[in-house]
């Protein structure tokens, strides 16, 4: 049976660009068909194509920044064992230094904040509120163990330190991190 077709109105310059791209791959009709199929697929995931692309770009950035995936249960197990074996001091030092590296890597506080929100989907709430010379960081996750919360708070402190903030006050307990920081006078 012959496929029924309809005409779509598209912006002139955009349709020209699409025709150019399609010409390198096959027919315009097949290319548009594929694009619309993917838009329907994205819709079925509850997202727009733009959201899908934005997400995938951010996750690609995670790889470039040196993040890798690991089943949550395993990373928690590793941390608990290493915490016991190496002690609190050594472990917090490693997480702090790694956080500092990431702060230097991202350079921009808003970009760092956005990345943490996107990569760490086990965090239910994350925000850095900058007010004048101070900043308040809040991080909540019901999935964090006590040890992991402590280490992750050190990671965040290290990153914020790279952005020129020093810790002034902290409240860290299982799944809850609240850090109050002040901009250091000498950078």
């Amino acid at each position: 049976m012959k496929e029924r077709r309809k005409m779509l109105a598209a912006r002139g310059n955009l349709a020209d660009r699409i025709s150019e791209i399609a010409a390198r791959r096959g027919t315009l009709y097949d290319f548009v068909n594929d694009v619309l199929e993917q838009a329907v697929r994205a819709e079925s995931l509850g997202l727009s194509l733009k959201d899908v692309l934005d997400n995938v770009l951010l996750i690609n950035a995670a790889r470039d920044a040196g993040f890798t995936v690991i089943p949550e249960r395993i990373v928690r197990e590793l941390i608990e064992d290493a915490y016991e074996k190496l002690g609190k001091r050594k472990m917090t030092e490693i997480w702090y230094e790694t956080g500092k590296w990431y702060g230097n890597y991202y350079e921009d506080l808003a970009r760092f904040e956005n990345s943490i929100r996107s990569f760490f989907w086990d965090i239910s709430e994350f925000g850095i509120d900058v007010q004048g010379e101070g900043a308040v960081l809040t991080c909540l996750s019901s999935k964090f163990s006590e040890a992991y919360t402590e280490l992750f708070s050190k990671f965040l402190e290290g990153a914020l330190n790279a952005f020129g903030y020093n810790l002034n006050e902290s409240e860290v307990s299982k799944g809850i991190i609240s850090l109050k920081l002040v901009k250091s006078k000498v950078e």
Partner: protein
Amino acid sequence: MFKDRSKEKRLVRAPSDLVSKLNEAANRQGKTFYSYITEILEQAVRAYEMRRSLKEIVDGYEVLEVHKEAGTVFAPRDILEFLLREVQDEKDETLQQLWYQSGRWYGIYLRSRSDSPVDAFVRLLQEGRWDLTEVTLRQVEKGLDLKCVSAFLSQERSMCLQKFIEGAMISLGYKSQKNECFQGIIRLKFTLSES
């Protein structure tokens, strides 16, 4: 004088059923069909400029959704390598078992979600941010030959990933016949499990 093509409209032919589905989606979002289609075509151009097809990008997003469902998280690679080096000797068996169980979960999940779960699993290895630079699956006599290569994986992480793959393949109905694992290279041969 040149015409301003951004203000002109051009007609493009498309399958009727897809147009109807997207028209409904545009209505649901309170957008005009024209602006909705413009957004979609802009993303197609964006994907092209990223040297990817939209299909590859949506596939990649679906892989991330599987990770979220599986409770897999991102962690800084350096810390992970450090922890594995420090702990693996003493906890080798427990860790390998955890990776294997995690693989089994992925296999069962993909089997229930995909019409071709083995292909979906290979895509998960390729697109899943495991730090693999090459993943190839070949049909060989009586089974499958899977090869994973990475410039980033330590010996410890290569071994963990090997266990993960074995676990997933068992859930997908394949048993491991032969395996080789060096730093950054995993080669596995599988045959269909009789059970």
